[in-house]
């Protein structure tokens, strides 16, 4: 709690209204966190035993079996004994696919996005504002509107079910990436740039030795946000990646659920798989949480 908050609270720290406010805040927080704890608790249970103690807050019949099953480390007999279907789901492969897809899109978008943002923010050329306006207008086009023709285009050039086909549409730009960085590039002091130019640096050198290092914070933020968004992407991967080598985690999760034979789904396996899919993003979040939380402010309001 910082000083300001304490100042607000000095007068009536224990008033009923204030207590009610804290209760409301903690209740929302509980609603936010509880499903994650329940996911962990289920993933550490056996599916067969779950119905015997559906309300237990602790894992039922504690085991790492669900994780082994999902990662293909357990035998079919063992999987079936714990309530899995025994069908092989190659999650390691999907994990790798998602990592490749999200990394490539992030690298391309951040690199080309910052180049374009530099051209829009720092260079003078005819038609700049008009081109920028057209890019801006692209934000209004709903993704599904371009997804149908893009799917047909990717299919026609023979890139369906390939990583390039998956990556290409968002590899070079999204309007958001350019707007986000342009905002920061606009704020850089002209004089620093000019003194570099006077020293004989061209635009490339200025870009790489001045602009990029000075904007490392927003560039990293954009990278993290792009990676998270691409990792979580569902619609485009559903259309374009149907083979083992191009199926993404999000899509595989959906398949995993519907693959369950008659009867109740393999909940422990499903929750283990869900946890594994969330893990990279959660790890990224814990490493950069302050940066991400702060970025929400300026990605939206400014």
């Amino acid at each position: 709690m910082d000083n300001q908050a304490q100042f607000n609270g000095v007068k009536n720290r224990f008033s009923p209204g204030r207590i009610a406010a804290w209760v409301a805040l903690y209740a929302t927080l509980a609603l936010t966190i509880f499903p994650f704890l329940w996911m962990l608790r289920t993933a550490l249970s056996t599916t067969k035993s779950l119905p015997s103690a559906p309300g237990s807050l602790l894992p039922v019949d504690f085991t790492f079996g669900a994780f082994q099953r999902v990662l293909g480390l357990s035998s079919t007999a063992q999987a079936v004994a714990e309530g899995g279907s025994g069908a092989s789901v190659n999650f390691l492969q999907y994990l790798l696919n998602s990592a490749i897809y999200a990394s490539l899109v992030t690298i391309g978008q951040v690199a080309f996005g910052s180049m374009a943002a530099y051209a829009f923010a720092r260079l003078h050329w005819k038609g700049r504002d008009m081109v920028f306006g057209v890019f801006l207008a692209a934000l209004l086009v709903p993704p599904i509107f371009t997804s149908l023709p893009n799917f047909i285009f990717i299919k026609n050039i023979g890139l369906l079910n390939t990583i390039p086909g998956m990556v290409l549409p968002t590899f070079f730009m999204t309007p958001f990436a350019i707007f986000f960085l342009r905002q920061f590039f606009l704020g850089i002091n002209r004089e620093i740039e000019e003194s570099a130019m006077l020293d004989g640096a061209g635009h490339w050198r200025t870009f790489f030795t001045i602009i990029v290092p000075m904007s490392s914070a927003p560039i990293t933020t954009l990278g993290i946000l792009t990676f998270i968004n691409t990792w979580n992407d569902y619609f485009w991967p559903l259309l374009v990646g149907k083979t083992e080598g191009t199926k993404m985690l999000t899509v595989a999760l959906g398949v995993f659920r519907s693959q369950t034979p008659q009867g109740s789904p393999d909940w422990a396996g499903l929750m283990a798989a869900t946890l594994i899919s969330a893990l990279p993003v959660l790890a990224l979040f814990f490493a950069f949480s302050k940066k991400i939380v702060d970025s929400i402010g300026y990605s939206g309001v400014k």
Partner: protein
Amino acid sequence: MKTRKKHPATTLSAHSVRERRAALVFILPALAGFLLFYLWPTLCGFYYSLTKYNLLGKPRFIGLANFAKIVHDKLLLNAIMVTIEYVLLNIGFQTVIALGLAVLMQRLTKSITLRGMLLLPWLVSNVIAAMLWFWLFDYQIGFVNIVIDALNIPKIPFFGGEFWAIPTIAFVNVWRHMGYTALLVFAGLQTVPNYVYEAASIDGASEWRSFSSITLPLLRPVLAMVLVVTVTGSFQVFDTVAVTTKGGPMNVSRVLQYYIYQKGFDQGEFGYASALSVVLFIILAGVAFVQLKMMRANESDMA
């Protein structure tokens, strides 16, 4: 370059030719991506909407026939109504909860840990959020129904109930987005200087009074911006529906985007699906237009 200040006219033009050339190189990849994967498909989308196209042959131009069919498409009307029901529920609850959360955070604590925790649901994918709640809402052994049963209330068929499907899907997305939206509003609240509240409290204004006469009016531009983003986003709900109800039961959760997807990719009617996405486009443009109007009204209001 060093003579630039002495002869601005001559060197500036040489300078600007170089600058223009550099600009072209810098913008080239993004421009190529824009033309190829944004502008061209947008034009194609409008063209396909005027054709009969099943991917096997070439698109065959049929004029406005798809749109004539759209007028009588009862499933489309249903999809639009369902989507509007979803948007109203989603936006209504999300805005109220986010506003409440943001104000609570501002008045009680600015803890970054707490803000981080609120952001967790937004970090995971729609698919994961849907899976989690599909499990928690399971009719037989889902935690929520176990609790409901223990309280002697009849169990609720959340995703499987005709009445419940859309509110449940809306709930899942409110859960995923409320923290994120709250942080957007919270960022807006930070721009209101603290002394305004202090002055109000010295004048004897109640918490409620300072909320309704200071916070809300000052927040209107931020709220309008948040609404533009969330409303257009929620009109395009797809993931949650696709992994939970698949439009069921009895079409009650077949939202517009899922209907377009089914027409195009399950039934191979790309021309008709494109015409449907033109409808979505028009709805979204209309919504954005109305909201921008309201925002502008806000601005003049503030001046």
